Each structure stands twice: as structure tokens, then as C-alpha cells.
């Protein structure tokens, strides 16, 4: 695949509801990373955005359950849309 075709990862925060994305990296400290991975959010996992309304927390579907993520946490999760 050529360089131009490679999709740039974007923060989860920018994903609109209804979209599915794959986690590329998580740019966070030890604690948050740990917490996220215990809920199944880690590089390589696929998630589906249910709610993201431009303010307030996001709801995403991951590993068959709904998880609420604060905007702070969502800005640190980088994804590529699938």
C-alpha cells in the first residue's frame, strides 16, 4: 500500500456515532491504559461508537458490552475507521 492510502489514525473523540473503528494506539499513562485494557480497549481491538454528541461522554460498544468513556480518555485513544 502506498503512503497516501494509509489512513491516518484519529482520536476516538472525532468518530461520529454509528461508525466502527480499530484501535491503533493509546497515548495514556500506566493507570488509564491498564483500566482500558481490563475493559478490552487496547491496540488491535475493534469498537463501535454508539453515542458521541460533541459534549459529554461517549458510549462505545466493545467486546459485546457498552462502555462509557470520558472525553479526556477518548482523546487519548487513536483509531482508524474500518
Amino acid at each position, binding site marked *: 500500500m502506498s503512503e497516501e492510502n494509509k489512513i491516518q489514525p484519529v482520536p476516538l473523540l472525532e468518530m461520529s456515532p454509528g461508525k466502527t473503528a480499530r484501535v491503533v494506539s*493509546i497515548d*495514556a499513562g*500506566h*493507570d*488509564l*491504559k*491498564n*483500566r*482500558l*485494557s*481490563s*475493559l*478490552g*480497549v*487496547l*491496540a*488491535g*481491538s475493534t469498537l463501535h461508537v*454508539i*453515542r458521541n*454528541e460533541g*459534549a*459529554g*461522554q461517549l*458510549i462505545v460498544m466493545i*467486546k*459485546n*458490552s*457498552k*462502555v*462509557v*468513556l*470520558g472525553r*479526556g*480518555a477518548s482523546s*487519548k485513544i487513536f483509531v482508524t475507521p474500518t
Partner: protein
Amino acid sequence: MIPQHNEILVALAGNPNSGKTTVFNLLTGARHHVGNYPGVTVEKVEGKRNYKDHTIRFVDLPGTYSLTAYSTEELVARHFILDEKPDVVVDVLDASNPERHLYLATQLMEMRTPLVLAFNMSDVAKGQGLEFDLQQLETLLGARIVPMVASKGQGMNDLLEAILETAVKQAAVVPMIPYGQDIEQELGKIERLLVEAHSEPAARYGSRWVALKLLEGDAHVCSKITSPDILQQVDASQVHLKKILGDTPDVLIADRRYGFISGACQEAIRHTVATRHDISDKIDLVLTHSKFGLLIFGALMYLVFYLTFTLGEYPMGWLESFFDGLGNAVIAVWPGEHLLWLQSLLVDGVIAGVGGVVVFLPNILLLFLGIAFLEDTGYMARAAFIMDRIMHRIGLHGKSFIPMLIGFGCSIPAIMATRILENRRNRLATMLVIPLMSCGARIPIYALLIPAFFPAHWRGPVMWLIYVIGIVAAIVCINLLRKTILKGESVPFVMELPPYRMPTWKGLMIHMWDRGWMYLKKAGTIILGLSIVLWFLMSYPALPDDRLVLLAEEEQHAASLQHSAAGRIGKAMEPVIRPMGFDWKIGTALIGATMAKEVFVTQLSIVYSLGDEDEDEETLTLLREHLRADYSPLQGFCIMLFCLLSTPCIATVAITRKESGKWKWALFQFFGLTAMAYLVTTLVFQIGSLIQGLM
């Protein structure tokens, strides 16, 4: 080997929302004991059961997703397993979502503890088309698996049988979770050093587990290792793995665990139907909607409060008459005129004090029934989500809204309700400011003072203003606290939205009764003590009889109170409270108000020699006339302001002590709020007087 007749210790682990508590209740019935783990405010619930000549002691560990050192709950659960070495750990899972729930199981496997997996809600799993090859899954995970439907009482005997079998048989072969060659290599290096150094943690908890935790950078385990050689190796391994595998070891290891789970699930679980979560998704579409969701939340909260304070009124009335009757009965059967001080101590101190606490029990039970229902259905997480947008702006978490709202009714259940907040700093901050939400007991004070000083068309707005001042003060204080003594990185918010579920009656009843009993037991003992102290303050030193006989009956009360320690303190306080526009009469009444806010009214009528029948509308009218003669509207407003902001009642102090775990916080709340009330009221009175002077 567990010899016959010996006690078997079983720890119950599981994710929040796995139905762990339902399983625990099913196993232990109502015979359980609620305590705290030493040193932390995490609740420890224990229960016993006899099964086939064995006594099994069950300990319900806090619900966690993982066993890292991330939160107090996780540490508590981990330490219980490591240090108490239970004979069996039962991991309760939601069978309809095995891939997520098995994550905790992999960490229990890493700890090499004898494990039984309770596949709860297996009916839901079946409905969703999941088929398990249990035998294969048992081999892959090295643990007995018991399908259950705890809410319907199914699978309990199988579970008990599996527990017994696992406890009695020799340690099973727990499969190792493969982390891949690179990680295994580094683990091996660290393990070797641990064994060579005869490291104490490694000897206790197993060298592989300690090595794994070190590699993950687990703060708690790292702090236990002092050898610089080992720490150096850990560092080198972490850097090496990051370089060749591109991520930190903790994430790599988590990834391998998920890989292991997903492999096991692919082998042993078949999905026969693809659709799922339909109904739950549709409900969520409405309940988490930014507008409808808010409306529904408002309506549900209204319903809970309506039930709490309206339905609660009847049993409250019965309890009140019961304690009144009890007091009167003591007076009636009292033998003659002897030991009247003891009679007064019993009636005015003990019975009135304890009665004042017990009358709130119906409210507490109803409120916690409502909260338990909202929590057990899974709604509370949605409520937190909806409120978060608003609460975030004032620096609070969505869930803080619920205890603060309850605070308008009564601070005591509100402070108990802060348990729904996971973050300790958030919880403490919320707890400390709850008395600022103007509670129901302050209404009699406003009802006395507002009509006394303000014309009819001003009464509504003044009342409104008082409530708003309380809310604003709470928000300001919370922000101050979170920026000063309760400072701490605000943890980025992550929470699971559990699937909707029908709560069980048994679960609801147990939740409700636990809270009620705790309230009676703990608050009751402290409040009893403090009530007696206050009684002494208001009764002693007593007025000599020769002076008492000269006075009319109403004047006797007033004179006695003036002569007592409380009256003297009130008088002595006068110079101090003068800047707020108060005199000794208000001061004395305020001392009484620490017993319960509404006592303020009774105390004032005693000071004005009007008797203590505060219910009487005629007395109130008379009292209002006296007050109008003595004070200005500004002073009246300042009294209300001070009552709103200052010292919470002793029941609140007691419950803050209980819920925060330390006297320090209860005293901080008591003195902090009083100091703030003093400052604010003084400012208002002084500035108000200045403006009045100019007009």
C-alpha cells in the same frame, strides 16, 4: 487436602454486573455480616453455610474487572486471595459475555489459586445462541465450570459440589497462559534473579506471578522489591520488549490474555444466532438521549423522593408517637418525686435522642430500596451518563448528583448514598458538602422566620434564595476541596454500561436491610452518647429550687436554660456571634440545634418563655411577634443563613465519621462548615447593616 469438618474458605470474585452479589445471597441466604476490610472503606461481606459436614465461609470480594493495583477494590481483592489463601476462589461470570468476563479468570489463573467458574445467567447466554463445550473449556482453563441462573436459584448445588471437590482434591494443573517467546524469555530472567535472591514476595506469591507483575510495572509489587539487580533487570526487560514489540509490557501481557481467551472461546463456544442486544439497545436509545433521558431521569428521581418522603411519613408518625408515648409512660410510672434528674435524662436525653434517630429509619429504608432498584436494573449507570454533562461543568462526576439531591431530604441517607461514587476523593468531597443542601429539618426554621420578617410576596423568593445559596456554596466548596486538600488527578472516566436486568426481591431486601441496620447500629451508638452530652449541657447546672418556685411555669424553663451550661455558653458566645447580628438567645438556640436542626424552634420558644409546644400555631404566632420586636429582617435572614451553612446536626457528624472511616473528616466538616457560616454571615450582616445605614 481439607480434612472433614474443617471450615472451607471461599472467596467470590467477579466483574461488577456479573451477578456476583446474587450468587453470594443465594449461597449464604440472609445470614451474612457486613464489615470493612482493615484500613480501607471497602465493604467486606461474609456469610456461612453448611454443606455435607463442612462449614463453608464465603467472602464476597469487591467487584473488579481486573486484579492490578489500579484501585483500592482491586488491591483488596488481590490481597485477600494472596494473603488469606482461600481454599477455593469462585469467579462469577456473565455467561452471555464470556470473552470479557474471562479476563479476570486469566488473572486468577496466573495466581495459581484453586478456581471454580460460575457461568451465571446461562439462560441469557442460551437465549443469545451461545453453546458451550464445557468439558473442553474446563480443560483449557483448568477449572470446574458450573452453569447457573442465580436469580432463579438454579445451579447452586452444582456450585457447592464443585467447590467441595476443588477444595478437597489436590491442586489441579492450572494451565499457564502463554505470553509468547519474547515475554517468556524476559520473565525467565526476572524469575531466576528472584529465586537467586530468595526474594520474600516471590517465595510467598510464586516467582512467576511476581515476575509478571514486575514486568507489568505493578506499583504495589515493585515497591516490595528492594534488590537493585532485580529492578535493573525489570527496567531492561521493559525497554527491550517495548523496542521489539512496540508497546509497554502491561499492554502486551493484557493482549496475550485476550488472545488466550479468544482462542479458548473459539474452540469451545459456538454462536448459533447472530443477533443480540436488541431490546437493550432500543431502551438505551431513549434513556441515554440528551433530552428524553434527562426528563426520564427527573421523573424517576421525583418518584423515588416522593415515595421516600411521602410514604415514609406514615411509619415516621407512628415511630414519633411511639417514642412520645414511651417518654410519657416513663413519666407516668415514675415513683413519686425522686430522682427527677434521672427521669429527665431518660425522657429528654435518651428516649428523645434515640427516637430522633430511629424516626428516620423508614425514610432510609425506602430510599435505599429505590436506589437498590435503580442500581440492580442497571439504570444508575445511565443516570450517571446523562447527568455527567451537567455535573462536569461544576467539577463533579455524574453520579454525585444523586446523593446531593437526596441531601434536600436529609443529609444522613445522602451521605450513605455517596457509596455509589467509586473515586474516594470525589466521594469525600461530596460527603463533606452535603449538609449545604438544605435538608428537611431546616424547613421548620424557615417556616418560623420567613413569615416573621418578610411580607407575603417576598416569602417565596426568600425561601428560594436560601436554597440557591446552599447549592452555590456546595459547588464552590467542592471545587475548593478538589483543588486543595482533596487534590488529585481527575481520573479519566471509564465505566461499563451493564445490560438491563430484572432485580431479585431477595437482593433488594438484603440491600435495603443492610443499610438500615448499619444506620441504626453505628449512628445510634454515637448519637446516644452525644444526646446525653447535650442533655447535660442544657440541664446543668440546675437552678436552685428556692429560686425556681418564685417563677411561673413557662418562666421556669427559660430561667433553667439560662442558668445551664448551654445558656451560659450562649451568653459567653455573645461577643463572638455579635458580628453576625446574633444575641445570646439565638446562641443558646443554636446549641440546641446541633442535636437536630428543628430543635432551634423549640429552643427559641423556651428562651422566650413560651413553653416548648412548637407545634402550636398560636405559640408560633406569638414567637414571631417576639422575634419581630427583637430583630430586624436582616438579622432574621442572617439566622437562616447561618442555620443553612453552619454545623450539621450530630447525626450527620456521626454518619460522616462512619462513612469516611475517620473522625478527622467528621470534625473537619463540623468546624469547616461552621467557620464558613461565620464568615459569610458576618459579611452579609455587616455589609447589609452598612447599606441599611446609608438608606
